[in-house]
């Protein structure tokens, strides 16, 4: 019996949470929406818990081989849910009491659902739907601020997303035609003898869709705009959660491809281009959100490295998952700091942060140094494992490129750290900093360090088989 609703319990939690939150929100008076918040948080928490318990389940696929229950799925579920929780935590101050508070939570939940399904599905059809499920709430979240900038960002995200969706559908269609199936299990053998050219078109189509979600070249254009113009929680969410699902999805897809075309090489090249573009573009940014947006682009470049050696090195999957977790918490920590001091938008605004609120400055320092990849932070271990996997996978050149990029990236992160630790300028007035966001920031920073130090314990857990 392949239909096991229980195996989907985490996803069901999210969906049900979304519905209930919407209903509750529609009945609650404006100032009592914290109930909706509570419900959403509960749903996320429940989802996380069920996902954690599901980690011990036997590795298998359910629903006719369209949904994999394995380590990757578990990791994706956990990271996505906890990341979303963190987003809510850092967004509370900004969302609380707004017209659209409950809807925001609904959209966050649905986006999380999309990401989690996308990361765990093993069927092209479900992948397409997950793409939609992940993208549509994003448009809503980005545009929610209704400012001109937000509207523009929403427009661009939407139009790029639509194109990517079409390409994804096209690719799916072609792969179906060639492989004679949409479930990876049947697809893999079906594609074995397929003509390479057509296969390439199919692969490119699907990749284009997923790269849009991951915010990598060529689908990266929307990331900085959205990060800059959307509300801080939305920005934090859309630079973190969708990537998780998309990258794991790419990873699963790459393992399906036959050797007749060099998919890994393509991914590697895209990774190199993405990280370089992201870094160089981030160099002269002055708006911290936009800078973070670009930096996430570069991070996706690093995240694509293990995918490039998905079939080449056994260490690839654990590396990817670890980096995903580390990246998520680090990025959210940075955004939490941004959310905590809403008045500081440009790098120069951050002058004197250390003086006015040392804890936030410390969290910022930890987060940014982690993004650079210095011990003992989480991303360092992530990068290390990722580099190792790529090296063992034979992509030495890619490792070199990535190392150079890491060094280069230090420059723009320091451009942010430096003013934060300089003595406050004359106009340095005390921040009306937001409590829960600050808490979230410090908490996330602590997690960054903790994950970095405890990576030894975490890594073995992520070392599981990948099923179809």
């Amino acid at each position, binding site marked *: 019996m392949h239909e096991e609703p229980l195996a989907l319990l985490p996803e069901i939690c999210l969906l049900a949470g979304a519905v209930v939150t919407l209903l509750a929100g529609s009945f609650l008076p404006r100032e009592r929406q914290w109930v909706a918040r509570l419900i959403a948080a509960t749903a996320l928490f429940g989802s996380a818990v069920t996902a954690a318990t599901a980690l011990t389940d036997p590795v298998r696929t359910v629903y006719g081989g369209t949904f994999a229950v394995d380590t990757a799925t578990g990791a994706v579920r956990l990271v996505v849910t906890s990341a979303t929780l963190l987003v809510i935590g850092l967004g509370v101050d900004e969302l609380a009491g707004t017209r659209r508070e409950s809807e925001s939570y609904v959209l966050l939940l649905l986006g999380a659902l999309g990401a989690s399904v996308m990361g765990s599905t093993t069927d092209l059809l479900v992948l397409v739907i997950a793409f939609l499920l992940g993208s549509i709430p994003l448009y809503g979240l980005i545009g929610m601020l209704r400012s001109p900038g937000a509207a523009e960002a929403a427009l661009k995200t939407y139009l790029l997303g639509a194109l990517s969706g079409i390409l994804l559908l096209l690719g799916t269609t*072609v792969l179906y035609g060639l492989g004679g199936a949409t479930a990876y299990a049947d697809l893999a053998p079906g594609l074995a003898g397929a003509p390479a050219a057509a296969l390439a078109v199919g692969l490119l189509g699907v990749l284009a869709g997923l790269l849009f979600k991951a915010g990598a070249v060529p689908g990266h254009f929307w990331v900085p705009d959205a990060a800059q113009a959307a509300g801080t929680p939305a920005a934090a969410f859309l630079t973190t959660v969708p990537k998780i699902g998309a990258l794991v999805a790419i990873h699963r897809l790459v393992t399906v491809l036959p050797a007749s075309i060099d998919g890994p090489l393509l991914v590697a090249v895209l990774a190199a281009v993405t990280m370089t573009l992201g870094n160089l573009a981030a160099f002269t940014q002055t708006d911290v959100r936009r800078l973070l947006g670009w930096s996430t682009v570069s991070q996706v470049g690093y995240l694509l490295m293990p995918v490039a050696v998905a079939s080449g090195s056994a260490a690839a999957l654990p590396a990817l998952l670890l980096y995903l977790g580390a990246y998520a918490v680090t990025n959210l920590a940075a955004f939490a700091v941004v959310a905590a001091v809403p008045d500081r938008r440009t790098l120069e605004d951050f002058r004197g942060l250390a003086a006015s609120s040392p804890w936030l400055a410390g969290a910022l320092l930890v987060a940014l140094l982690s993004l650079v990849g210095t011990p003992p932070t989480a991303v360092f271990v992530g990068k290390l494992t990722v580099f190792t996997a790529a090296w063992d996978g034979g992509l030495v050149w890619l490792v070199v490129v990535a190392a150079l990029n890491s060094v280069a990236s230090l420059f723009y992160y320091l451009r942010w750290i430096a003013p934060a630790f300089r003595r406050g300028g004359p106009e340095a007035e005390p921040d009306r900093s937001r409590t829960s966001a600050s808490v979230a920031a410090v908490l996330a920073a602590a997690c960054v360090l903790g994950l970095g130090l405890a990576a030894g314990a975490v890594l073995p857990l992520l070392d599981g088989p990948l099923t179809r």
Partner: protein
Amino acid sequence: MTLQTVLLVAAALFCVGLYGAISQQVVVMVMMGLELMLNAVVLAAGAFWWFLVPEPEGQVLLLVVITAMTVEMAMGFAVATLLHRSRGSDMTDTATDLSR
């Protein structure tokens, strides 16, 4: 009526749509271009189903494509409305504050 011919027609439709999506300024027109591309995908999907793998999955795929088309359309309208309300314009060119 062979696979190739049908696919060629689909490709033609696709590229027309692409042309539109790139060349049009009004959001709605861009969306029409995208619709046209989806249209091509529908055709291609049908062709693949008929000529290569007449499995039920193919039908589901078509169903999915249609759903996607509808959903994207709806979102498109919503976004266009938002743009029109907040920027008072429905041109993509006028929405270029965010760059670099």
